């Protein structure tokens, strides 16, 4: 697993926040980013930039992520955002029939103001969405998320348990995959061939044993669970009870009010 984007322990507001409420909050902030379409205008860039700055401030203060960790976790997305910005800036005139203003021209390359604005807007939107995802992943413990989904979001416990089992199997899957790859290497089947189809064949030959071992495990686990009466009752008892704090509710309600206010603002000023 990439260490930069996995849960870390800390004593922050977001670490203590209920995962279900955190998800609702992230959806609300995403709506903020998507409410106004990215247009090739200066105001559109400013709009996305303000939302991005707010998200970064929240990540650094309320989540205690830290600047270095934030940059590390975003290191994969920043090149993507830059690539889209360059692409939009260079090829905007070829992707639209709308009029445009040239910033720089050289042969078929036409850098336009509109392309730069749209590219920056889209790049910022990518950074907003990925920053929100990072906030969630870095501050949410998988076990607590499943418990919250079962207790707060009322997810049926059989489904919740399935989710929990899948998460529990992550390290085992890693281990199994490593063993299979090593077994392949010992037999001379490795990563020496770099063609697409040879890589796909390699994927197929590691996926089948992985799935077969998974099916064997599923048979054993399901027999053990059935013999212990899993699913015999519609409700089950809980050891770790999840209690939603009032701060979480208030935080989400305030964000909701801000969103409603923002929608009215956009409608009233016809922005």
């Amino acid at each position, binding site marked *: 697993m990439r260490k930069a984007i996995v849960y870390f322990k800390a004593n922050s507001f977001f670490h203590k926040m209920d995962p279900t409420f955190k998800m609702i909050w992230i959806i609300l902030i995403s709506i903020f980013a998507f409410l106004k379409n990215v247009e090739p205008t200066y105001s559109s860039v400013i709009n996305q930039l303000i939302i991005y700055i707010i998200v970064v401030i929240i990540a650094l203060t309320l989540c205690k992520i830290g600047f270095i960790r934030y940059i590390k976790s975003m290191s994969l997305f920043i090149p993507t955002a830059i690539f889209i910005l360059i692409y939009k800036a260079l090829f905007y005139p070829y992707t639209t029939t709308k009029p445009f203003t040239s910033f720089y021209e050289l042969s078929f390359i036409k850098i336009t103001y509109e392309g730069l604005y749209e590219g920056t807007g889209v790049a910022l939107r990518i950074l907003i969405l990925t920053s929100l995802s990072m906030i969630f992943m870095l501050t949410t413990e998988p076990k607590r*998320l499943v418990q919250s989904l079962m207790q707060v979001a009322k997810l049926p416990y059989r489904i919740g348990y399935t989710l929990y089992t899948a998460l529990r199997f992550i390290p085992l899957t890693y281990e199994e995959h490593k063993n299979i790859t090593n077994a392949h290497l010992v037999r001379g089947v490795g990563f020496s061939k770099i063609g697409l189809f040879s890589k796909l064949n390699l994927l197929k030959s590691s996926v089948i044993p992985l799935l077969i071992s998974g099916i064997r495990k599923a048979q054993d686990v399901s027999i053990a669970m059935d013999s212990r009466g899993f699913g015999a009752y519609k409700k089950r008892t809980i050891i770790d009870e999840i209690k939603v704090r009032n701060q979480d509710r208030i935080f989400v309600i305030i964000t909701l009010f801000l969103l409603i206010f923002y929608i009215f603002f956009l409608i009233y000023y016809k922005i």
Partner: protein
Amino acid sequence: MEKERKKYYFSTFDLILIAIIAGIGGVINGALMYTFIQPFKPLFIFLGPISWVPLSGLYVLWPIIARLLIRKRGAATLCGLIQGFVEMFAGSRLGLQPIFFAGMEGLFIDIGFELIKDKTKLFSSLLGAALANLVADEIYFFLYKMTSPFELSVGGLIAILSGIIFAGLLGWLIAKAIYNTGIIKVGNP
């Protein structure tokens, strides 16, 4: 106990199998697929920001396998949703989004399987995979504003082909290989 268990649509074995397939899929999609796909991106550089689309079908592989092995409606959707969660925690670069995308892919795979009912399940797999990959990729295009006619049309066409080859056909072959080992004994896919 037996009487009680029958009221559930998915048996305990189905659920655990979904969890394991989603777990494997989530780990491979979230942590390994990105590095697997990167070396091939320069081959499709002429596609610009949609150079990832030709191999995007690989992301749809797992719910197809789940649907072929479990053979129940909704298996792909449930597998997709759980895979999305695992993908997120396995270090996916898209964070929360895999839950939505993988769930959507699973749903369209189930729809594809309901549209064609062939005995071998090959055509259902191909249709489900093509539909799922097309819908997921087009949503992705709109989300990241890759909405020029070129991106939408050419990207859509490549998404269908990628879904058919890397998810539908590959998924079907993998499921067939698993049935051939005799570990699951419910006919052939």
